[in-house]
């Protein structure tokens, strides 16, 4: 075991010290990511710092994993061309060790190149966690357990998901079952004056039946009440009959605790990204054992894209299936969508592995699903590496 670790480390070290062009490429791509996202900051939909941070870091991670794929494929492809893989088969190194060592070294090459930019985005960038501590520092978050919409006729309706449009005279009641530790803040984002001609929102916010805010809303606003709560509160937002329509962003409604230290967030982001780089490099290395580097890059790139957009593809397939229920979709298209969803579901979700989304939503860095994300990535790595290692270790046809 010690010998195997030493051999993997030797291969990884040798790989990481090679090919300075890979480092240069990774750095160039990372800079491209930083500047590309800087360019779209002016767009209103990415104006919010958390969204800007998420987009910028995601693009950096995408490009870095592409560079890792390239570095992994190049390291093994070059060994294959030079006959070195066959030569190493005569040593104590097993095929799996060679693949793993080369992939780890390739991932390290890229990681070292993008680490300064990664650190800069986290620490110095205007949309990064250090400069946007209030928005991005992890906090304990408690969502309402029950949401009810009170209609004008006095009836009540449970609201399960998504934003809600409140009409004049309607009420929205949120019930919490727990409190975060420390001084908690109620977050209830909403938007009034949805069109230029709509009248301003006139509202009353009640806590456990007592009105705490009565007023007239602007275009984009919300409530942020910070206090030591004695018990989980019951919140009621009531619109006056002369009020305009209000859109309440219920998925973002929560009680959240005070901001915590950022170190755990940084560790989570770094470990997730390193795991992603290793996965990409291993994919490139494994494919390059069986095919030309160019082909390995194309195939690996497509797989990486599917892994990155997995959630989007699953959602799209879900929509097709849902719409089919209304008879709007051809059965063949539905069958394709379902098959596609099943195929994509087999791939690991690297966005969950990366953890950028959690950081952008100021969630505690480690979630219950993260273990599953890392496990899925490990299983995927094994499934990628095993056939490649078997292919590498095969004996020549007819050899005894």
């Amino acid at each position, binding site marked *: 075991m010690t010998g195997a670790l030493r051999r993997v480390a*030797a291969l990884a070290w040798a790989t990481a010290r090679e090919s300075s062009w890979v480092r240069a490429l990774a750095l160039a791509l990372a800079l491209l990511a930083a500047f590309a996202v800087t360019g779209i900051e002016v767009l209103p939909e990415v104006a919010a710092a958390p969204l800007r941070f998420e987009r910028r870091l995601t693009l950096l991670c995408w490009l870095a994993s592409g560079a890792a794929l390239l570095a992994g494929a190049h390291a093994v492809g070059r060994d294959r061309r030079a006959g070195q893989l066959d030569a190493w088969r005569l040593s104590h190194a097993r095929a799996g060790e060679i693949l793993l060592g080369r992939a780890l070294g390739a991932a390290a090459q890229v990681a070292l190149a993008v680490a300064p930019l990664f650190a800069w985005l986290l620490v110095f960038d205007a949309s990064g966690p250090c400069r946007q501590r209030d928005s991005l520092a992890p906090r304990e978050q408690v969502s309402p357990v029950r949401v009810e919409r009170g209609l004008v006729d006095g009836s009540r309706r449970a609201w399960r998901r998504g934003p809600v449009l409140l009409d004049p005279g309607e009420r929205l009641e949120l019930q919490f079952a727990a409190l975060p530790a420390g001084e908690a803040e109620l977050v209830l984002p909403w938007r009034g004056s949805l069109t230029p001609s709509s009248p301003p929102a006139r509202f009353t916010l009640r806590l456990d039946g007592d009105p705490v805010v009565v007023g007239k809303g602007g275009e984009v606003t919300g409530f942020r009440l910070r206090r030591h709560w004695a018990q989980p509160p019951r919140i009621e937002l009531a619109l006056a009959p002369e009020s305009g329509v209000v859109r309440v962003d219920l998925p973002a409604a929560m009680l959240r605790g005070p901001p915590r230290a950022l170190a755990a967030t940084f560790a989570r982001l770094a470990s997730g990204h390193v795991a992603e780089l290793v996965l990409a490099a291993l994919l490139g290395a494994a494919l390059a054992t069986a095919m030309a580097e160019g082909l390995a890059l194309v195939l690996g790139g497509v797989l990486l894209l599917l892994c990155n957009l997995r959630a989007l593809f699953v959602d799209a397939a879900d929509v097709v299936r849902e719409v089919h229920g209304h008879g709007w979709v051809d059965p063949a298209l539905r069958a394709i969508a379902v098959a596609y969803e099943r195929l994509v579901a087999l791939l690991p979700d690297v966005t969950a592995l990366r953890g950028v989304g959690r950081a952008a939503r100021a969630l505690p860095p480690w979630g219950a699903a993260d273990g599953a994300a890392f496990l899925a990535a490990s299983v995927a790595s094994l499934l990628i590496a095993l056939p490649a290692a078997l292919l590498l270790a095969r004996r020549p046809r007819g*050899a005894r």
Partner: protein
Amino acid sequence: MTVPRGALHLLAGANGAGKSTLLRLLAGVAAPSSGAVELLGFPAGAAELRGRVAWLPEASGAEWAATVEELAGLAAALHGGSRAARAERVEAALQETDLVALRRRRFTSLSKGERRRAATAQVLATGAELLLLDEPLDGVDPESAERLLERLAARARRGATIVLSSHVLLDGAIGGDRLTVLAGGRIVADGTPAQLLRDETGARRSFAALLRQARGGR
């Protein structure tokens, strides 16, 4: 063809004679269409030979950007041994290939002959019992090639078995224990270098003359 342990066995022949194929068969990376290849008592490619055989492929190390010493160190690490033993093997390999002064140079910055010697140093640094060297003298200047052959002969005298192929053999090859000449995939001459490199009158003849005669004798 049988190669005794502790011998420096030379394979000569024109381009396409089958030298590299023979070495690939010995390394176990190609399979014979008929017949058998046995190394150190085991079939070629057997798991028992791991770490005991090292092979220098013909195109080895075309694009490495690592330094000469790092490459030799990597080969030594993959073949195992203590840290001190590995360092000793690397040092010996660099000395045998005259690369001590170039140890910190990147492989890609070396000339063709220096690259070939660096690739050979990798194989020597493994410390394997059986060394299969495919064209280690390719691109190497005559003086360095002579010295390398002498040192390989000395290594063989210390117990290593070396099978070396070359299409340009030099005077230093006289120090080899055995010379096999291949043409068209067949052995056309086999004997000690001293025997084969003399004509019927006992006069010294060139390798080119030997190859010409061997080809004509098929």
